[in-house]
């Protein structure tokens, strides 16, 4: 079924009887060409692109709970491609370009809104670093603009630029950055994949891999064995747990990242703003909630919830730059499991086991990467070769010393 304004009107006039399920609820088959583990944004996007762009058939996505229930359903919805390093910037710019055409591509309004992202600058050293970054973005074909305080004030007149502990001295803007209705991304990919024949199987937990002679033949699941030609794992925060079933140890830790939303408010935030001297970033959803977050709690966790000190730290950052938000009320806080890698950058690579492929280590940058991650993982699965924008995301980069460390924090995941 094709969605359109006309269809909405037609259904409204005929009692909404014509709407059908957005995706099927199929029984798993005994064998697929490709099985994707993980019905989150990345897994669904992978299946979608495998079917749509790489002509693959007989694909299944296995999800242990409900689709879109991981980080795609619990993030702060930001998209951007303001990366510094060669290994990253082309990939994230590819992702942003995919975002730009995504809704028309998968016929679902994910409310992709390029309202811009602004990284605030508070020191000369930060200005130097952001200049280098902005230049790297432009040299990679992305957009970047260095804004003066005055330009920033025009967009955010209530931003506390002066008379502050860390006065604002400028900002690096990426106008093509923005926000997306996060759940809709999962649903849009799911619907698009389903309509191209992909079996999306919910409530199907993978309990093990069947590996013989160095080749992975399929997966044991809570709904029985499912054979597969190739298996792609895209389970983000659960990566270490899943891959341990294949006796793999990953360069990764799972950490909790909290996020927050305020009560609905009339529009005040035109775009996304990140604080450069504290842990805080914020945007406003179409519903009116201020959506904000900050740093990791800092300890390994699979609990999907965090603790009070981080909540306070984030709100302190918020009040430092937006003291006008003091009387807005925080409505809800939640936590996601971040697959924090050892250099802060992801892995999209084959494993040492034939037929077993891995996608993970997204840290807290996974949402914006969803389209490119799906596309590049599909490329790898379909062609057994990395997509040109994802060649650096190898497992062996740590062993060989080719880290992609945007923040320069080294092998301590909670600092990335």
């Amino acid at each position, binding site marked *: 079924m094709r*969605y*359109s304004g006309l269809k909405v009107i037609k259904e409204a006039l005929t009692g*909404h009887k014509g*709407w059908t399920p957005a995706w099927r*609820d199929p029984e798993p088959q005994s064998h697929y060409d490709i099985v994707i583990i993980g019905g989150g944004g990345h897994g669904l996007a992978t299946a979608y692109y495998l079917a749509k762009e790489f002509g693959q058939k007989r694909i299944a996505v296995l999800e242990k709970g*409900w689709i879109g*229930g991981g980080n795609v359903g619990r993030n702060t919805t930001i998209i951007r491609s303001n990366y510094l390093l060669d290994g990253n*910037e082309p990939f994230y710019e590819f992702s942003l370009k995919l975002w730009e055409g995504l809704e028309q591509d998968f016929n*679902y309004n*994910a409310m992709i*809104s390029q309202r811009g992202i602004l990284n605030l600058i508070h*020191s*000369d050293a930060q*200005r*130097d670093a952001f*200049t*280098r*970054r*902005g*230049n*790297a973005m432009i*040299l*990679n074909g992305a957009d970047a603009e260095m804004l003066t305080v005055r330009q920033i004030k025009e967009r955010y007149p209530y931003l*506390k630029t002066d*008379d*502050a*502990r860390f006065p604002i001295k400028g900002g690096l803007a990426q106008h093509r950055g923005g926000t997306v209705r996060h759940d809709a991304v999962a649903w849009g990919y799911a619907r698009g994949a389903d309509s191209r024949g992909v079996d999306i199987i919910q409530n199907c937990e993978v309990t093990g891999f069947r590996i013989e002679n160095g080749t992975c033949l399929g997966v044991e699941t809570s709904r029985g064995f499912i054979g597969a030609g190739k298996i792609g794992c895209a389970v983000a925060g659960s990566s270490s747990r899943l891959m341990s079933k294949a006796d793999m140890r990953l360069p990764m830790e799972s950490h909790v990242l909290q996020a927050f939303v*305020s009560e*609905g*408010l*009339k529009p*005040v935030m035109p775009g996304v703003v990140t604080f450069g001297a504290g842990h805080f970033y914020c945007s406003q959803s*179409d519903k009116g909630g201020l959506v904000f977050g900050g740093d990791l709690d800092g300890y390994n966790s699979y*609990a999907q*919830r965090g*603790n009070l000190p981080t*909540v*306070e730290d984030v*709100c*302190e950052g918020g*009040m*430092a730059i937006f*003291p*006008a*938000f*003091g*009387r*807005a*009320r925080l*409505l*809800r*806080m*939640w936590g996601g499991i971040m697959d924090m890698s050892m250099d802060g950058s992801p892995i999209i690579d084959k494993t040492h086991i034939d037929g077993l492929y891995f996608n993970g280590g997204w840290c807290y940058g996974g949402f914006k990467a969803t389209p490119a991650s799906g596309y590049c993982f599909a490329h790898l699965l379909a062609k057994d070769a990395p997509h040109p924008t994802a060649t650096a995301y190898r497992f062996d*980069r740590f062993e*060989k*010393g*080719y880290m992609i*460390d945007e923040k*320069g924090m*080294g092998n301590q995941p909670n600092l990335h």
Partner: protein
Amino acid sequence: MTQINRLSGGQIDRDTTLQFTFDGKTYTGQQGDTLASALLANGVRLMGRSFKYHRPRGVLTAGSEEPNALVELRGGARKEPNTRATTVELYDGLLANSQNRLGSLRFDLLAINDRLSNFLTAGFYYKTFMWPAAFWEKLYEPIIRKAAGLGSLSLKEDPDVYDKGFLHCDLMIIGAGPAGLSAALTAGRAGAQVILADEDFRLGGRLNSETFAVGDQTGADWATATLAELSSLPNVRIMPRTTVIGAFDHGIYGAVERVSDHLHTPKDGKPRQILWRIYTKRTVLAAGAIERPIAFENNDRPGIMLASALRTYANRFAVSADKRVAIFTNNDDGHRTAADLYAKGVKIAAVVDSRPDAPRQENYEVLSGEVINTKGRLGLTFADLRLADGSTRTLECGALGVSGGWNPNVHMTCHQRGRPTWNNDLAAFVPGGTLPPGMTVAGAANGEMSTHGALVSGQAGSVAALHDIGIKAKASDLPQAEDAPVSITPFWYVQGCSRAWLDQQNDVTVKDVKLSHQEGFRSVEHLKRYTTLGMATDQGKTSNMGGLAIMAELAGKTIPEVGTTIFRPPYTPTAIGAFAGRHRGMDFHPTRLTPSHTWAEEQGAVFVEVGNWMRAQWFPRAGETTWRESVDREVLATRGSVGVCDVTTLGKVDVQGADAADFLNKIYCNGFAKLPVGKTRYGLMLREDGIAMDDGTAARLAEDHFVVTTTTANALPVYRHMEFVRQCLFPDMDVQLISTTEAWAQYAVAGPNSRKLLENIVDQDISNDAFPFMACANITICGGLRARLFRISFSGELAFEIAVPTAYGDALIRKIMEVGAAFDVTPYGTEALGVMRIEKGHAAGNELNGTTSAQNLGMGRMVSKKKDSIGSILSEREGLNAPGDLRQVGIKPVDPTDPVPAGAHLMTADGPVDAAHDQGYATSACFSPVLGHAIALGFLKDGDQRIGEKMRLVSPLTGVDVAVEIVSAHFVDPEGDRLRA
């Protein structure tokens, strides 16, 4: 205006009449009212508009779960959007305005959405507004955003302050209703350290809303008496107006005390609210229960509210929502409202009970049947009934109390991902699964719905919780109290209804849930996300159950099979300002001042934030119009004669012990074992991954005593790392560490005349022979003050760093300036410091950015292979030693008038300019007053082999594209003659 709906009795102060204004109109209320009760007393039912369809809304509840009566409270910078009228304590001069409307509250132009509702069903926006792509941001989204949202912020800085605080107790009791009071009394009498917190300003919970007796007094009187006893116990802290917002790990709770919200403005110096972090050993959750509505057509009109709320307004606030009231219930509790209102003289139009065996009553009509529709544009006027016999009837009424049963308030039991379990007798979820460790649930929150049950379970919960932590508490005789069983027949929605509201704020109706099911959004989380059910400011407290019940029916499952979404903190929405406390504005982070700060201020220095430090950036002099003039002067004066700079901010770690030298050998990649006493050495510290972590110097003051310096930024992480190496990796080395960063005031005295200057201060011989380059010593100055002297140089000049105990730092800078006057000594700031280190080619923060290796810095050979040091093995990896790797270089413009900005990228002179051909980048840049042109340090692929190459330095971001030459990073005195002079 008179309070036309005011009844007799209640717990308000009739002698204290308060004036307040709502939507520009002035009313009166009484002390003890909430804004909602006062408005109802004045006959105002219409208080707001719903989120999506802008339907007229009045109060639904009498508590913090209120989804409808949200107002903008106060004005100016103190405006608080989305404030629940049901929790606002009335004060004299209160100002409130309705919100989320275009035009007036009565004639909201956006009410057009209600007419279009058939097009605006659940998820409609996912299916349209996609063409053309560019129209989303430009057209559709702005319209949607403008219509969405609820209240508006003032966008002025919040003028109030917020405190934080920390409390410790044996037992915290959340909720001061019958269960909570009973628990508190038991624990208080046992001598435990008790905190009793309640969100209300009047404690007692439902006891204040009911007419039941407790013992020989009214419930409210019993509550008052109990509170009086508790107040007399020094071990009990009673915290009214305090909402416990979250159960965090290991018995830590967050709570917000509203210190000043019931006042016009906070008193001078007093906070508006306090965020308490409460460390508890045990907790009794006695948060009561929340009544739930029933869904029927047009069940959202002002005047339709929860039956229990009607009762609260009547019994506690002495208010009836209207003169003529009807009740619609599926359980016995609804009848209580009718009885109480009747007793207060309110006309009961009828009680409609969905059960065939509804209890009969003499004083008013009880009908078996359902409410199938209502009328009244801005407030309820009529209710249409369908009776059990199939007949229909229309009731005239201005208020309709609805009771669909009670949900135990399990919110906080779920904060650590516990999931409630279903109780068939109550037709409700009760606490279950894994509760937050240390939490006991009592009273209605645990499904004990009678007053007696609450008293008993509160006491038992308290005794059990205290027993766990070794405190003996006695169960005492409890007063007699109401002990009626719950009699309920589940009834969630009226068959055939469509525009029957489940989530009244977000406008989610029965029809939307059905559509969600039809489209495959059947998981409870999908239902929530697709329809927005339960995402309103009450987070589903009043709406979730109805949605779950309908989804269960559609899916052919039971409600527990459908499951629940997760309650997450905070329990009620909480001001962002409260979480930030005092940490905002200039108090966002602490300030660290250097010992010369006062003196520098006197000189008119311009200061800059360096981490938490404030450092002098430059010292402008009269006549200087740009910062460059000042900085150039400072550099030239230093290089020409002598300059002085406060370098106290560098981290200092005292390293002592027999194994101190061996320890430094571990943490630095270069060797320290053979450093003689009285000498200082540059050291490069690697992380275990072989990347440079920090650099600095280590001065050997004695065989077993070193002073290690770190960069300003890394003082803390380096110290932590050193402790890690000491405690975790080499636990039996004899080495002790302590930070002395702030113990010493340290000044760099640099320039050809620095020795001459210091000879006037230092008591010892500091000639080049006696105190050569890299010497260090404990000395005295000015005739006896203990001090330390290091002959080290960041500027490349003959230079010293001199340190005295911090208290003497102010005196020392003044002394240096005084004796230095003969040499025209010039104070310099961080800018000149930066210029001189770039001229000298010293790496600093911009170069040591966490991705650079020793090799990148041209120090690869410093990494000793003869010893075990942190990072040495992994620094040998291929990627850190690959051809084409970056090397530090100097960059100068071919045309000396061109800039060479930091952050610009290096490209070959005639190759393409794009990322694929990127050759490196400039890290630090400045204007060199010595050379008369801009210079920069940078990293360039194979840079060490490209000295002399002409390249392009481009910064498309800032519009720079200049021809540059790659040169040695040592722009000034590459041979180092000056430092050794």
